[in-house]
């Protein structure tokens, strides 16, 4: 069977879900005739027509707000943010309206907001962001951020079928760089379950999205050069977060580092750290260490971007310190 890229996996899930359920429709900027800025939605318009593949004005708040209204009525909208950086334009709609709808008004709001996220692509401050932490703090939303083609496929299916609003972050660096054979059948990855990307016994790297691949690269190097056995846990769901899998790896290796591409202060790593200290403090043999982007807007020029974002060499260096503690 042919291998499928991360991007094709997302597209395939969209086709299959639109086939499966006539209530599923997609809306966003330039997603129809043009097929989307990254061509994720290419071919949808030809197959499903303008009523289910809606090119919208440049209005992120209206895209999300209209999706919410349609979702109340039983539709299953999938919104595209052309770049996830623009999700901040819909922050009010997502946090005040969508996230609270079920709780305050018993209104179902099954919608998905998806979009190309992340850096390592020389995109500069407004085409490289990782805004997941801004929404982690919002009860009522779910957040997933896959790192593999299979998970991109299975998590999008789960997100569309979920009865609650899901933010689906997809990493643009991975779009065409990784591919694999997709599992056969109706492969749905449950939201809220982490994935053990690599087994190890000496220390654990907890991460998600593009840095999963950097962590795996670092783990190879550490095994070869230092004889260290490194476990890599891919969170893939950030909200809800898989505490069970996190504590299992903590109790197994007793040394934990958290790696993410997003900036440091107020990031996901802080939340994971707090959970570990509350639920498994006594199992730690070393402080929890973070490898993240520096606390700056993401700059454009390659030497600047490379300096700010976490690199494999950073992970290796911190892992060595952790192992030696």
């Amino acid at each position, binding site marked *: 069977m042919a291998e499928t890229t991360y991007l094709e996996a997302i597209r395939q899930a969209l086709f299959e879900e639109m086939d499966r359920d006539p209530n599923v*429709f997609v809306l966003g900027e330039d997603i129809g005739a043009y097929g989307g800025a990254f061509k994720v939605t290419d071919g949808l318009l030809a197959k499903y027509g303008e*009523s*289910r593949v*809606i090119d*919208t*004005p440049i*209005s*992120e*708040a*209206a*895209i*999300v*707000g*209209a*999706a*919410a*209204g*349609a*979702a*109340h*009525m*039983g*539709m299953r*909208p999938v919104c595209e943010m052309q770049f996830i950086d623009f999700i901040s334009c819909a922050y*009010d*709609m997502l946090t*005040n*309206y969508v996230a*609270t709808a*079920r*709780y*305050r*008004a*018993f*209104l*179902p709001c099954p919608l998905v907001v998806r979009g190309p996220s992340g850096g390592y692509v020389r995109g500069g401050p407004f085409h490289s962001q990782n805004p997941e932490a801004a929404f982690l703090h919002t*009860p*009522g939303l*779910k957040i997933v951020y896959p790192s593999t083609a299979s998970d991109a496929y299975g998590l999008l299916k789960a997100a569309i079928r*979920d*009865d*609650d609003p899901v933010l689906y972050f997809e990493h643009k660096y991975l779009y065409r760089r990784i591919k694999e054979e997709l599992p056969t059948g109706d492969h749905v990855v449950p939201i809220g379950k982490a994935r053990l990307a690599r087994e190890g016994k000496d220390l654990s790297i907890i991460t998600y999205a593009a840095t999963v691949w950097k962590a795996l690269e670092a783990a190879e190097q550490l095994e070869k050069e230092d004889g260290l056995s490194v476990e890599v846990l891919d969170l893939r769901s950030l909200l*809800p977060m898989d505490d069970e899998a996190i504590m299992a790896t903590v109790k197994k290796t*007793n040394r934990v580092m958290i790696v993410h591409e997003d900036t440091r202060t107020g990031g996901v790593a802080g939340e994971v750290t707090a959970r570990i200290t*509350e*639920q*498994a*403090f*006594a*199992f730690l*043999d070393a402080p929890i260490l973070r490898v993240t982007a520096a606390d700056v807007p993401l700059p454009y020029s390659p030497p600047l971007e490379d300096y700010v974002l976490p690199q494999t060499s950073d992970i290796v260096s911190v892992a060595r310190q952790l192992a030696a503690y």
Partner: protein
Amino acid sequence: MASRTSSRGRNAARPRVAAASGAPSASLSRAQKLEVYYYMRLTRSLEERLVNLYRQTKVIGGLFRSLGQEADAVGSAYALDRTKGDFLSPLIRNLGSMLVQGAEPLEIIRQYMAKGDSPTRGRELNIHFGDLERGFIGQISHLGDMVPVMAGVTLSFKLRGQNRVGLVYVGDGATSTGAFHEGINFAAVQRCPLVVVVENNGYAYSTPITKQTAAAEFRDKALAYGIPGEQADGNDVLATYDVTKRAVERARRGEGVTLIELITYRRKGHAEHDNQSYVPEGEIAQWEATNDPVDRYVARLTGEDGVKPNELAELDARVQREIDAATDEAEKSPMPEPADALTGVYADPPSVEPLWYRSGVSSAVAANERPASWGTFNG
């Protein structure tokens, strides 16, 4: 210089066009006209009851009045067809619209009293609630946000080929928000079956319309969206009904969005605590004396329509009985169970875990202690 609010108010006091024959309201039956009166009276009297409860500190949060705006709320909502499944999204001064759409006084009083059996089980305040069955969606406090949401509700009507219409209320203040602009533009482009009612009541909290917009009239905003902009005297309930009914029928015919500006006046403050010190002297009294929507409708009913005063008195008595009964019932309602606060954030999981120190665990550390016999630490 007279403020624009006042000058518009004077204009609004004299409807520019007398209810023409052929106007939709001309075909309202006598019973329907009395029903419109009932809803206006119910709105006013229910709010008066809420004021009493507020003064007795039985209303937990703020109290928002629609005194003087009952005609615009009731007349516009009455133009929807509930048998066809039409929808509305109210704003804070649309108690009357919600009552027309089927909200009950008991629900309103329970909401204000934060009761456990209120429509939101004590989660939300005042008239912030909805019901998909009866066809209204609860607003949130962020003004303008309901325009995109109702664009989506009506988009679903269009996508499914349903013959239904939606109506969304905004105030003069909400027209300044990005959400209003994005939502009405989106709906216009998609030709959603949506009516957008801008209730121009002169003030957004303390801000007069002259500080809200440089546009001469709110209906002018329709021009930029490529949709019709209408205007009517919001204190004339039948004029309000007529202009909305025409827009509803346009929407139902697939002709898209209409923006309607209803000119009215907010006689009370933003909420009950607001002393309205910013209002020019005499302005409120003038509206009360010369342009009260209930008084005007009573004059119309007892004049042209030949309704006997005792018929209206009977309706007034019915309203009082219903409000008394609802108040008694609401007073007996329980407050919510505290732990209910953890349920229903998500469909799955249906409940959030209680915090450990609220769930009988004596110590988070003790609960997660490393067994003495266990360990890899050898430093």
